[in-house]
Structures are given as C-alpha cells and as structure tokens.
C-alpha cells in the first residue's frame, strides 16, 4: 500500500433497464447500486444487476461530495460511493438531509450526514448502548458517557444514488431516536428485523472540504444542530474557575494590605466639652499639627465619646498646614438606651468614624467644632468627654467589591451566552419547553 496509487478500480456495467453506465466502486461489499439515468435500484450481487425496483423522485439531488471522491478522515482514506436523501416531518413541515456512504476496502464503511451545513461523521456501532430512563426522560449510556434523548422521528428514504452495503429501498421509513452528548450523537434506527445503533461526531464542513479536496467553501451552517458543540462549552466552567482564582488573588491582596498598612495612629487627643447656651460662643478650635507620611492614602478620623442617652454633633475639617487644602466633614453621634415593655433597647452608639479617601502626604491639623443641645442647662446633658484619633492608611472595601463585580461580568456573560446556545439547540428537540 506504499506504492504510488493507481486510479481507483471501478467496475463499469450496463444498466439492464436503460443500458446506461453503472459504476461499482465498493468491490464485493456493495449490495445495491443505483442507475441514476433511469432511477433503478439494482442488485449488485447478481452478475446481471437485476432490477430490484424503480423509484420516482420529486427532485434530483446533487451530492455535495461527488461520488468517487476520496478523502482522509480519522487517518483513514475513504471513498464516497453512495448518497441517500432522507426526510422527516415535524409539525407538518418536511425536513430532509443527506447521508453519504464512505468505503475503504480494508476498514469498511463510515457515513457522513449533512443537514443545513451541519456534518456528522458516523460509525455503526458493534457494542450495544443501554437505553434507559432518567426521571421521565429517556437517556442512553454508552462507554461511560450519558446521552440525553433529543428527538424521535420517522426517517424516510426519498432519493438514492450510488452504492449501498445494504438493500436500499426508496420510500422505506424507519423509526429513529437521537441521543446527544455534544459533540457526539447516538442514533438508534429500528426496523421490524433489527435495531442499529450508530455514533456520530460533529464535524465542521471545513474539515470535510479539506479532507475531500472539494472546491469552493462548504455551505455555511444554519442554526444550531442537535450535537453541535457549544462555542461556550467548557468556557463556562473555565470562566468561573478564572473568576474564583482572581477573587482569591483579590482577597489575598486585601488581607496583605490589611496586615501591612493597618492603622498607624498619627494623632490622638482627649477633650472635654460643655455647650454654652444660646450660641454666643464660638465652639471651634484647631488641633496641633501632625504628619501624614508616605504616599497618598486613606485617612480615618475617629470620634469616641462618653455620651449616654445624649447626642452631639461634630463639624470637622482636615486641613493641610502648608497648602490650606481643607476636607470638611461632619458626624452626628447619638447613643440612647433604656428598657420598655419589650425589654432592653439601644439606639445609635457613642462612637463615629469617617474615612477620607486619597489624602496626599503632608502636615495637617484638624478643626473641630462640637455642638450639643443648647436648650438644656444641666451639665449631664450639655457636656461630654471625647477623644479624636487620626489613623492613616486604613483598609477600605469598596475597591475589593468593585473588583469582584468587574470579575463577575465575563463569567456571567459566558454563562448567559452558553445558556442561549443550549436554548437554541433544545428548541429543535422534542423537549422545546426547556433544557
């Protein structure tokens, strides 16, 4: 088989019906051969090519792979020797597809099916898949994989040409069931006499074109085919895995940041305050200057009070001692508690905290203006003790959460795309209600 290949040996015979030339390429394996001139099906096992039947065709189909063309698939050279067109009806609409017979005298037969530009390379199975049920739906188990039932239909042969390793019969209809595990599909064909299982593998038209050296480009595939692999297949899992990896990295960065930067206190001072009545007094004062070293970072200002069933209001400003840039902010602190018919209750708290983002380094001081109830003269209500702390480089969570959300986008997008592909796939099945 290593010598240069001569032309394929083709047996040329005369059709006993019309005298036209009938070519036989399948050596002794061909059982029936079709005379395409007079549409006769001939018995290839009789030397005289007995006429088995003549058929009528509403239209003449042309094979996309011309019969007699050879191509290598799965590393094996095959010759296309026959084609049948089959038809099924669903919801009153007839669909037809082509099935090509591929032949290699040593390795036997394979088949190619084509529907709307979708191709499958098919092998008739010798082992027996196990058809069973999962819940209410039929499934088939084969070689460790589970195939989900896609549809059942009657497949009728409406047109034949070339050669077949079986007794082909135009008009014959068989009951078929397709089970899918993309990119593979198990098909079961049942006749009275036997059940034949076959395994198809989705094959892009471009691969067929290249294998058989066909001219032009393959017809583009329309819609989503039963066992067409989803372009998102595997990517959904990959996208979510990637998401988890990045979140893990974010968490790591976040905690490392917390470990290394967490709260260097740059200023801390205790004060006491008594509210004067009728706002005649200016309550504001400034603190001493403190240094915010290093780089631009977040600064937290904490106010801890001894308020008890009382409230206070703080107007604050962080002011750069050199540039006079000021960051104004304010906080109300109120803490109440008691006991009523429902039991003990508390409201608010005696502490407040403000995080000022992205403060440049430099020398700063705080302007503080506390305010309390001006109407009450009792010292228990209008005075307090409090502490102000300034903490540099506090860890903040917004960037972490924004990061998580940004990372979610591709994962969710991939999931949705995959979902819509599966929806299109199953829309053509017996289970178009869902997937």
């Amino acid at each position: 088989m290593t010598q240069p290949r001569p032309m394929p040996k083709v047996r040329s015979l005369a059709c006993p019906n019309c005298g036209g030339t009938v070519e036989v390429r399948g050596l002794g394996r061909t059982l029936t051969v079709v005379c395409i001139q007079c549409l006769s099906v001939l018995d290839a096992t009789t030397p005289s090519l007995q006429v088995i039947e003549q058929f009528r065709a509403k239209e003449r189909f042309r094979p996309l792979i011309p019969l007699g063309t050879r191509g290598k698939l799965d590393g094996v050279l095959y010759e296309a020797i026959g084609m049948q067109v089959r038809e099924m009806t669903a919801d009153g609409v007839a669909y037809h597809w082509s099935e090509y017979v591929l032949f290699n005298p040593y390795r036997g037969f394979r088949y190619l099916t084509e529907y709307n530009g979708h191709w499958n390379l098919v092998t008739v199975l010798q082992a027996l898949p196990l058809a069973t049920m999962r819940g209410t739906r039929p499934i088939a188990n084969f070689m460790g994989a589970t195939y989900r039932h896609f549809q059942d239909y009657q497949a009728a042969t409406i047109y034949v040409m070339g050669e077949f390793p079986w007794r082909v019969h135009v008009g014959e209809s068989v009951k078929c069931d397709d089970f899918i595990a993309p990119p593979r599909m198990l098909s079961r064909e049942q006749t009275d006499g036997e059940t034949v299982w076959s395994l198809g593998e989705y094959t892009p038209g471009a691969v067929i074109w290249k294998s058989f050296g066909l001219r032009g480009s393959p017809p583009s595939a329309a819609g989503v085919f039963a066992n067409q692999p989803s372009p998102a297949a595997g990517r959904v899992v990959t996208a979510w895995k990637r998401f988890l990896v990045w979140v893990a990295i974010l968490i790591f960065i976040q905690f490392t940041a917390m470990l290394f930067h967490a709260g260097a206190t740059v200023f801390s001072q205790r004060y006491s305050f008594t509210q004067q009545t009728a706002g005649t007094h200016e309550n504001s004062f400034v603190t001493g200057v403190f240094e915010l070293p290093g780089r631009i970072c977040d600064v937290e200002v904490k106010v801890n009070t001894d308020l008890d069933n009382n409230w206070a209001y703080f107007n604050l400003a962080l002011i750069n001692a050199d540039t006079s840039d000021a960051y104004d902010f304010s906080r109300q602190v109120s803490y109440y508690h008691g006991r009523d018919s429902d039991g003990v209750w508390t409201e608010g708290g005696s502490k407040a905290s403000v995080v000022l983002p992205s403060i440049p380094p430099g020398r700063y001081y705080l302007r503080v203006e506390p305010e309390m109830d001006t109407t009450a003269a009792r010292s228990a209500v209008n005075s307090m003790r409090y502490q102000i702390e300034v903490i540099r480089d506090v860890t903040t969570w917004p960037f972490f959460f924004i990061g998580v959300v940004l990372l979610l986008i591709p994962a969710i997008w991939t999931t949705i795309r995959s979902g819509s592909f599966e929806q299109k796939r199953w829309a053509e099945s017996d289970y178009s209600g869902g997937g």
Partner: protein
Amino acid sequence: MSRPAGNCPNCGAPVEFQFSSAVQTTCPYCHSILVRQDVDLKKVGEVADLPPEISPIQLLTEGIYKSKSFRVVGRIIYQYELGYWNEWHCITHQGESLWLSDAMAEYAVSALVKPTKPLPDPGNAYRGARVEWNSASFEITSINRARYLGVEGELPFEYWDKSEMVFADLRNGSAQFGTIDYSESPPLLFIGEFVSFDSLGLRNIREFEGW
C-alpha cells in the same frame, strides 16, 4: 505443528496440512473437499465457484491477537441478508483454533466455548433474549439466516453438506461479541470480541488495486 501430507484422491496433487488437528481441507488445484479418515483423504464434495473476493484476508494471512500470533488456514463463506460473511479459521502459534469473522468489513475474533448455562433452543431464540456466559451477559440482537456458499482450506471439523443455517448474534455494552450456531445440535457457542482491522497487524493480506 506437524504437517502431515497426502495426495488429493481426485487429482493427485500434493495436499499439505498446517494444522495438525485439521479434519477437513480443500485441494488447492481441483477444489475438492477432502476429509481426513485415519491417514487417508476422502473426497466428500466439491466447492462451487466462490463469490468475487471481497475480504482483505486470505489463506496464509498472519496477524497478532492478544499477543498471540496466528495464521489463517481455512474459511467458511456464507451469504446472508446483509451480504457476504467470511469466517476465517486461524491457528495460533500455540495450536489453538480462532475464528476471525469479516462481515461487511466488521471484524471479530471468537473461539468455540462450552456454554456455562443452557443456550436458548432455536424456538426460544428471539431478539432481546438474554444469554449468559461465565460472567458476561449478552443480548440476542439479531437472528440471521445464512446460506452456506463454500469452504476453503483447513477446518477443525467436517463442514460441507450445509444449506441454510440459523445464527443468533450476541452483543453487549462493551465490544464483546458472540454467535450461537444453530446448525449443530446441541448448538455451538462462539464468544469473542469485535476488533479493528488495524489492531490485528495483518500481513500478507489481499491488495486491492488502487487502494
């Protein structure tokens, strides 16, 4: 492996046996079917014209199955609904008989085995019936009526006066394979497995022009 030799009682041509336990062979010159009786060869029939050669396997093809080398020494050829079907009789280097079947280029290797449970009798052999052998479980997937067309070479039993026979095909979820041959009583059980052409490493095969 002894090679008892003799002469064809029909045409006098030398007849050689490669398989010491061969019971029957055919004369390569006049196609007489010869049966061994003690040291003599007796002509019991003649092989009609065999169909055009379709199998890449032929007498003296050699190969390897499960680390055992084998050589093809004989065959039985049938015709059934799906075409021609060759049962090639092979002898391993240890002298065992194996059958390499080629049914429309689907290949399987099997050997005659003793049933471990009674086989369904022909009346009870229907599609879907279960057949057990040792720990393996099979389903009858088809009942084939085959027409005996002829023999060639050496066989481990006499096989020549046949006409139409019934075979049951056994399959299961793995590549295992079985056949019940109802032409004998009690029926014969062959168990083996499907094999790919390339896995057998066949040598001395028939060459097809252009392939």
